[in-house]
C-alpha cells in the first residue's frame, strides 16, 4: 500500500467538565487510503468525536492528543486555525446527520451551497450559482432552479440530505466524513442518498469515512469497517467479512437487529465486557 491519505495513531479525546473526566475516544489508530471506511458502534462509542477531531471541530472542552494525525502533507493536530479553514470543506468535508438542523434555516439552500464553493474559489456570484446548480443536478435533484430558491424547511428530509451532500462536496474534497448521513431518513430515501454519495465518491476518487450504527448498511456500502466500543476500536475488518466477525461485540450488534428473513421471538442483546477495553488495539 502506498502512503495513506489519512493516518491516525493513538487518538485520544478527553472531556473535562465539572471535574468529571470523560474519555470519549481511547487510542484510536487507522489508515485510510482511497476507500470507504465505515465506523460502527453503539451510541456514545466515540464515532462522531473521532470524525469531528479530524476536522478540528471538537467542542472547546475537548482535549485531543494523538501520536499522529496526518492528512496528506498536513499535520492536522498542529495546523493553525487559518490552515484548518482552508482545509475544511476544501480538502476534508463533513456531512452531518440531520439536514433539518444542519442547514441554516433562514438561508436559501442554493445560496448555502454556493457559499461553500465561494469560500474556496475566487469566483463571482453567478459562477458560484451555476456551480451549485450543477451540483444539485449531480445529486439527482430534478428541478434545481426551483430548489435553489427554497428554504431548508421547505425541502423534505431526503432532499435536504442530498442538498447537504451537494454543499459539502461542491469543493471536491479529498476526504469526506459522513456522520450518520442517512439515519434520519426512511429506507427508500436512504437508498437514493447512498447511491448519490457513491456516485460522487467514484467520480472524484475521494476517500470516505462513513459513520453509522447500522451494521447492515455499512457492510453493504463500505470497503472496510472499524467497530468501536466506548471509544476504542475493537475490530478493523473488510466490510465483506463482517458476517464472519469474530469479536463477540460485533456479533452481538449483528444479532440484535430484527430481520425479515429470520423471524424470532426474542432478539439477542449484546453483552458487554469491560475487559475489551484493555485488550490490545486491533
Amino acid at each position, binding site marked *: 500500500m502506498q502512503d495513506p491519505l489519512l493516518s491516525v495513531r493513538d487518538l485520544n479525546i478527553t472531556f473535562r467538565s465539572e471535574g468529571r473526566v470523560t474519555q470519549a475516544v481511547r487510542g484510536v489508530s487507522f489508515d485510510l487510503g482511497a476507500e470507504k471506511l465505515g465506523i460502527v458502534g*453503539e*451510541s*456514545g462509542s466515540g464515532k462522531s468525536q473521532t470524525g469531528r477531531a479530524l476536522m478540528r471541530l471538537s467542542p472547546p472542552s475537548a482535549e485531543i492528543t494523538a501520536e499522529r494525525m496526518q492528512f496528506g502533507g498536513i499535520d492536522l493536530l498542529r495546523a493553525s486555525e487559518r490552515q484548518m479553514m482552508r482545509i475544511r470543506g476544501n480538502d476534508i468535508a463533513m456531512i452531518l446527520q440531520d439536514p433539518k438542523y444542519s442547514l441554516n434555516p433562514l438561508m436559501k439552500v442554493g445560496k448555502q451551497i454556493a457559499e461553500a464553493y465561494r469560500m474556496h474559489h475566487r469566483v463571482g456570484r453567478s459562477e458560484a450559482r451555476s456551480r451549485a446548480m450543477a451540483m444539485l443536478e449531480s445529486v439527482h435533484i430534478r428541478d434545481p432552479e426551483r430548489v435553489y430558491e427554497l428554504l431548508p424547511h421547505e425541502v*423534505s*428530509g431526503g432532499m435536504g440530505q442530498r442538498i447537504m451532500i451537494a454543499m459539502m462536496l461542491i469543493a471536491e474534497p479529498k476526504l469526506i466524513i459522513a456522520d450518520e448521513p442517512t439515519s434520519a*431518513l*426512511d*429506507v*427508500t*430515501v*436512504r*437508498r437514493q442518498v447512498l447511491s448519490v454519495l457513491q456516485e460522487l465518491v467514484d467520480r472524484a476518487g475521494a476517500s470516505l469515512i462513513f459513520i453509522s*450504527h*447500522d*451494521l*447492515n*448498511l455499512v*457492510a*453493504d456500502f463500505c470497503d472496510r469497517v472499524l467497530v468501536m466500543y466506548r471509544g476504542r476500536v475493537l475490530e478493523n475488518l473488510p466490510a465483506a467479512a*463482517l*458476517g*464472519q466477525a469474530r469479536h463477540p461485540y460485533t456479533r*452481538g*450488534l*449483528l444479532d*440484535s*437487529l*430484527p*430481520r*425479515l*428473513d429470520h*423471524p*424470532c*421471538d*426474542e*432478539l*439477542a*442483546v*449484546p453483552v458487554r465486557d469491560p475487559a475489551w477495553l484493555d485488550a490490545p488495539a486491533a
Partner: protein
Amino acid sequence: MTTPNLEVSQLSIAFGQGSSRVEVVKQANFGIGKGESYGLIGESGCGKSTILRAVAGLNPDYEGALLIDGFELPRRRSKEFFRKVQMVFQDPYASLHPRKMVQNVLIEPLQIMGLDRRQERIDTILSDVGLDQSFRFRFPHELSGGQRQRIAIARALIVEPELVLLDEPTSALDVSVQAEILNLLNRLRRERGLTYLMVSHDIAVVAHMCDRVAIMKDGRILEKLTPEQLRNGAVSEAYTSDFLAASAPAVVRAG
C-alpha cells in the same frame, strides 16, 4: 372476531386553513383486536404519527370515528380513556420532563388517576421494565436513551392501560438498545395482554413486533399485510415491494 379493541373508521385529518389546508390522513380504516399488535408503516411524513395523536386525543380536529370497545370516543378525552389508552413517544430525550425525577414522573399518573398503593406500583413497574430501584431518584439527564425510553414505557404502563400507542419507540436508539426495548415490549404484551398500535418506518421492526401491518403512503393506507406476507414478499402494491427491497439486509451471517 370479537369487537375490536380499537376501531378507526374513515379517519381524515387536515391541518391549516384556507389555501394552506393540507389533508395528511385520508380516510383511514382499520381495527385492532384485543391483545393484538398492529403496525403502521410508511415513509416519513405519510401521517403515521398523526393517526396516533388523533387516537390519543392530542389532535381533536379529525373527521371520521374512533371507537374503543365499540363506543365512539368523545372529542375531549376523559380520564377513563387515558386509563385504557396510553402512548409512548418517539424521542425519549424529548418526552421526559427535564426537571422531574423518575419517581415523580411515575407517581403523577397515579395521582391523577387516584390509584392507591403508589410506591408498590412504582416498584413493580420499574422491575417490569428492567430497572432497579436506584433509578427512582434519578433525573432524566442522568439516564441513557434506552433507560429513558424504559421510563417512558413505565409511565405509560403504570396505569395499566389496555391499548398502548407506540410512536417509533426505538428509532432514536441504537440497534443494541433497540433490541432491549423491543424485547421488553414483547414481554410486557405477553404478560399483560396488551394491545399495541405501533408506528415505525423500519419494516423489520414492524414485522418482528406485529401481528398485522398496514402500509401507508401520503396519508392513505395502501394495503394491509401479515408479517408472513411481508417476509415472503407477497405484496400487491409496487410501493410496498420497493420498501421491502430497500430494507433487505446486507450482512449474510456465517453459520
